[in-house]
């Protein structure tokens, strides 16, 4: 009887464990599927908001414009149709709000019912004209030509240099500055965190007395538990003004500030994991080095670090990888300018910061909304790649010759 109860109980526990792991796995898979489904929805959409069209003269040979060309035309960076594959004819921007300057109220009609004719007429008279109008005015009576817009595609999405998803007439969805911003901030963070973290872990593993180590280690682990907003606040109050003063900049919110905050957040992981790695160096190996007349520093530099090199690499990548996803702190200190950075002293914007800042104001299901999910996918792929690299590095034989 007792035996039966016991075996039932064991089965129950087994079942519970199985169930919970299945549910967890399922949830993760569902999240990833959702992320990619929404993200992929970005592509094959037109960058022009629904309900609007671009119209030109009906004899204009140009049929299609890309989002980038549209932007340049309306910013008057492109002033001739030749540039976009048309005739040698200068471009006239026609703002529908100014229609009253060209046509009388009666010509337009009381309820704008003759507006399509007016627009057609205007484009007829100005062969180089282009106008951004609601589709309402391109229906009955309209005789101009409606341009198609190149749909958003992956290569454009990744290589375009401008991120301005709410731009009119065409949303600019170039994630390159965001990817670069993320990489710059992360790279800077590695540059800062690696030497600091390595030095601290060496100090803890090889130099200090066990007593000090036993105080230091829990303290550093405690750092890992501080919410990232607090780090961001610290960065905003201390680091940002510091950088501004030190380099005499107009604003202190820069890539450098992001890197510093990220580095501080990554340090606990880097220190604890690389310290563990350093401590795996066999005593025999250290003794062998010392017995050959090497001093402590030579032993650390020539034997202990090479021996635990893969562990240290993994620690760094893991620390930064974990910190990259940390949105808040970086959002608070980098200035969030979506431009391609040229130095650490310029504002940048990272992918997570973009998602956090914009998701709330992007209309659900719209292009902007989907583009943010696509950003999430890119971040997911970056993090995934990092994890694969970590896996590869740490599984690689420790004993590699240098």
């Amino acid at each position, binding site marked *: 009887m007792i035996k039966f109860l016991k075996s039932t109980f064991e089965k129950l526990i087994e079942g519970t464990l199985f169930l919970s792991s299945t549910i967890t796995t399922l949830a993760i898979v569902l999240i990833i599927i959702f992320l990619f489904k929404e993200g992929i929805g970005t592509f094959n959409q037109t960058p022009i908001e629904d309900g609007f069209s671009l119209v030109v003269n009906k004899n204009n040979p140009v049929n299609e414009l890309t989002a980038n060309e549209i932007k340049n035309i309306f910013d008057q960076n492109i002033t001739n149709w030749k540039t976009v594959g048309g005739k040698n004819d200068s471009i006239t921007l026609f703002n529908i709000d100014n229609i009253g300057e060209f046509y009388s109220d009666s010509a337009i009609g009381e309820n704008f019912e003759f507006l399509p004719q007016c627009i057609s007429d205007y484009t007829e008279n100005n062969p180089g004209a282009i106008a951004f109008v609601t589709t309402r005015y391109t229906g009955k009576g309209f005789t101009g030509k409606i341009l198609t817009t190149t749909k958003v595609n992956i290569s454009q999405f990744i290589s375009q240099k401008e991120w301005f998803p709410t731009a009119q007439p065409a949303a600019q969805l170039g994630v390159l500055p965001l990817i670069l911003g993320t990489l710059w901030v992360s790279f800077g963070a590695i540059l800062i965190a690696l030497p600091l973290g390595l030095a601290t872990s060496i100090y803890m593993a090889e130099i200090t007395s066990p007593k000090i180590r036993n105080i230091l280690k829990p303290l550093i682990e405690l750092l890992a538990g501080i919410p990232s907003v607090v780090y961001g606040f610290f960065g905003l109050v201390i680091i940002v003004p510091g950088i501004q003063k030190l380099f005499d900049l107009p604003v202190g919110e820069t890539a450098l500030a992001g890197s510093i905050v990220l580095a501080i957040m990554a340090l606990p992981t880097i220190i604890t994991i690389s310290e563990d790695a350093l401590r795996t160096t066999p005593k025999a190996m250290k003794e*062998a080095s010392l017995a050959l007349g090497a001093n402590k520093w030579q032993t650390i530099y020539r034997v202990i670090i090479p021996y635990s090199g893969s562990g240290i690499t993994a620690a760094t990548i893991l620390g930064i990888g974990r910190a990259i996803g940390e949105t808040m702190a970086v959002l608070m200190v980098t200035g969030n300018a979506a431009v391609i950075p040229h130095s650490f002293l310029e504002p940048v914007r990272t992918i997570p910061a973009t998602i956090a800042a914009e998701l709330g104001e992007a209309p659900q299901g719209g292009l902007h909304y989907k583009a943010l999910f696509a950003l999430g996918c890119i971040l997911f792929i970056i993090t995934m790649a990092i994890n694969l690299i970590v896996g590869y590095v740490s599984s690689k034989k420790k004993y590699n010759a240098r």
Partner: protein
Amino acid sequence: MEYIITTDKVNLFYGESQALKDISIDFLPNTVTALIGPSGCGKSTYLRLFNRMNDLIDNVKITGDITVEGENIYQKDTNIVELRRKVGMVFQKPNPFPKSIFENVAYGLRVNGVNDMSTLKEKVEFSLKQAALWDEVKDKLKKSAFELSGGQQQRLCIARALAIEPSIILMDEPASALDPISTAKIEELIYELKSKYTIVIVTHNLQQAGRVSDYTAFFYLGELIEKGVTKELFINPKNIKTQNYITGRFG
């Protein structure tokens, strides 16, 4: 004849517990001395006095006189790096560095400031030849030392110790982790190295002690029970404890 190592009434304490009691042994140059005794009797502790490896352990107290080549090595101004160049060490388990075969042997030279490639090459080759490993590795000097077999690794560690041209080599159970063939190679090597080096070897293998050593010292519970010419000690032990140990009655 002048002794190369002398120890006079050496006591060693790990904290409160005494690991060595009044040990006095002197070592002649170009001889092999075996230290034998049951586990925990202090053989390794004694051996590690000569290159001051015990310094790495906290709370160690040492009294008595120890000289190497006529100099007291436990003075305040003793140059430990110099000492360790003179007194090489081979450990129980092969412990090559995570580096290439070449860099393993060159290590001692590099940390002592030798970086000239032709000098390094010459000394690495010479040491590997002395350690009877050259023919087996000469085509793969750039390969990781971990690709060698255990026996080859141990000979590599011997070559590594020889490269800085010590006059004394300490070996702490150098063959205990190896197969019989590798063990035989190491023993042969010890025999050959004797002409140039003074060797002190700790071993649990009494046949090995009999085969390779000129002198033997028997330790028991931190005390030196008996020392003498190996053959005499084995054939004709003076102390009953020695006799019991070598006839296998305890240990």
